[in-house]
């Protein structure tokens, strides 16, 4: 089992290098040397420019430059943000944390609501509740997340009880610890709900499908035939088997959340990685673009590795080296 996990981690780390090289190459394919604009910027001292030019060996061939870049990253030198005028790491840390809170909250929200709904729909198959849920999830699945966010913000502006964007109230610094937590949670409500809705929709449909698939299996028939109460048949026998394939989804779910989060962060002005990347792209802040893309990929790959480990843990068939 340990061997399997190590194998997976190694392949993912290799993948990470490939992704980072891809982003690096992409940034270098952009016409124009970005240090030119840097040199013309009076706000940045010539020493800083010289330091970073030396650090990144801009006159070397591409592969050597990439090598230097990776070494720098491993040493904690992520580059310099021209837009914020500080090293990239100063901006990234806080943003990463914010995106993480938002994604995690919606992940928990999604799973704790969509799974029961999926089971419910499967058990009441083709009854009105199932039909209604499937129409609702279709609608949620097809609405652009950012549009939904605008609609909810529009509604909240009439209602007035929820903050309209941002992460903290203006008087945040004067609050007690409990007050701070409450304030942040209040600001989380709109972006997290909107973000959950669309992934909830697809998860609910998948859970329903899995559950229906399992309920048709012979062992369910056998369990019923030997007279087990329906409650035990469903929650002990069916549910466990229907749940397994979802664990693989967890990793991809995380990807969808991160991507979806970016746009919703922008609309709700949540100070996360997505809105940072947007600012970076708009202002052609090369190192910031590379770093935030890389960081988002690291988050995603970590999510995938965790899902892999979880799957090995819940599904013994994988542990013994059999596929599917």
């Amino acid at each position, binding site marked *: 089992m340990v061997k399997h996990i190590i194998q997976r981690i190694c392949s993912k780390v290799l993948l990470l290098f490939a*992704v980072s090289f*891809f982003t690096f190459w992409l*940034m270098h394919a952009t016409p124009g040397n970005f240090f030119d604009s840097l040199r013309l910027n009076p706000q940045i001292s010539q020493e800083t420019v010289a330091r970073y030019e030396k650090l990144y060996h801009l006159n070397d061939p591409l592969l050597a430059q990439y090598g230097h870049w990776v070494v720098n990253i491993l040493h904690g030198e992520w580059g310099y943000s021209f837009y914020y005028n500080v090293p990239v790491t100063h901006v990234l840390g806080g943003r990463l944390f914010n995106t993480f809170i938002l994604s995690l909250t919606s992940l928990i929200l999604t799973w704790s609501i969509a799974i029961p709904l999926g089971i419910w729909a499967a058990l009441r198959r083709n009854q009105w509740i199932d039909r209604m849920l499937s129409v609702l999830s279709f609608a949620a699945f097809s609405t652009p997340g*950012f*549009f939904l966010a605008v609609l909810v913000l529009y509604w909240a*502006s009439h209602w007035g009880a929820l903050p309209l964007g941002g992460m903290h109230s203006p008087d945040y610094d004067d609050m007690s610890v409990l007050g701070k937590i409450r304030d942040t949670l209040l600001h989380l409500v709109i972006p997290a709900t909107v973000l959950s809705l669309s992934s909830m929709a697809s998860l609910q449909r998948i859970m329903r499908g899995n559950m229906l698939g399992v309920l048709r299996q012979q062992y369910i028939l056998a369990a019923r035939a030997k007279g087990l109460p329906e409650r035990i048949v469903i929650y002990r026998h069916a549910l466990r088997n229907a749940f397994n394939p979802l664990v693989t989804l967890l990793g991809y779910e995380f*990807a969808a959340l991160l991507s979806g989060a970016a746009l919703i962060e922008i609309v709700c002005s949540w100070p996360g990685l997505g809105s940072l*990347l947007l600012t970076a792209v708009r202002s052609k802040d090369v190192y910031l673009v590379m770093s935030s893309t890389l960081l988002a*990929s690291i988050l*995603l790959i970590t999510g995938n590795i965790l899902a892999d480990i979880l799957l090995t843990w819940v599904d013994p068939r994988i542990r013994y080296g059999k596929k599917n």
Partner: protein
Amino acid sequence: MARKINSHSRTGLALEAFRRNRVGMICLWALLALYGMAICADFISPYSYKDEDRNFSYCPPTAIEFFDQGHLKLPFVYGRALTFNAMHRRVYMVDAAQKYPLRFLKGGRLFGVDAPGRLYLWGADARGRDLFSRIWYGARISLSIGILGVMISFILGLVIGGIAGYYGGAVDNALMWICEMFMMVPGFYLMLALRAAVPQNFNSVQVYLSVVVILALIGWASLARIIRGMALSLRERDFVLVAKTLGVPDLVIIFKHILPQTISFSCASLMLTVSSYILAEAGLSVVGLGIQDPVPSWGNLLSDAMGIVPVIFAPWILLPGLFIFIAVVCFNVLGDSLRDAFDPGYNE
């Protein structure tokens, strides 16, 4: 005497099943109507997409009137008088003194009103441009961009998925590894990073093409994986063995014998990809990195609506979102019902 055998191909049977799906057919017709409107945008919209009148910034929708002081008249619209309220906000009052009859088939457009009057069926945007016209011009971009992007990803997916699935082994591993690389960057981030590499001095056609390419690059990997899965099982079939024994070259087997088998099945996921591309284009344009302003797309029409204040005073600028929703729902339903038709066991 030979009797005509009433046989159906698998595709024929599936299409038959699809035709019986009422919701699927409604969506198909709705989409055809949307595409039709987009093609005829020049004819059905009263103004060109660039036609602006800053005196009518955020002018509310104009109603078409049929009665004037209790008498039935030919359709006409009232003029608008601009006043400011106590908060210095623009308020447009109906000015019953000005009347502009609707003109039909004038200047190559289906309907419109004469010059000093403006016809805003669905209201105006910040620069006094007609939203009704801009939505249909925008449909051209939003609806075509998804299809073009999917074509490119589909070709990439077919070729790479087909080769990976047919050869298997090391080729398969290497190609799937590249696919995984593309799937390991969250879509929106990949899109923005790719956009950052696009030169900023592109004209609107170049921007359009680069958005198509960006969309194609974010979606081809998952299509390739689906096709690879199908090719993997198809290569074990007898007809492939026959072709191999007859000495047919590998590439011919892939392109002539294996890939055509996958197309009918991947049709369904193709529809779902179109809808995700429409959403992606909207997302890119709404933050100002996609299609650039005077040219409308459903995404950049919504970029006005990203601030909460304009939405409160001019809620009609949310309309393009409804159109995105309709198009995406239709493509999704179409994809679902095609899959049900081709693969009846899928949802059961």
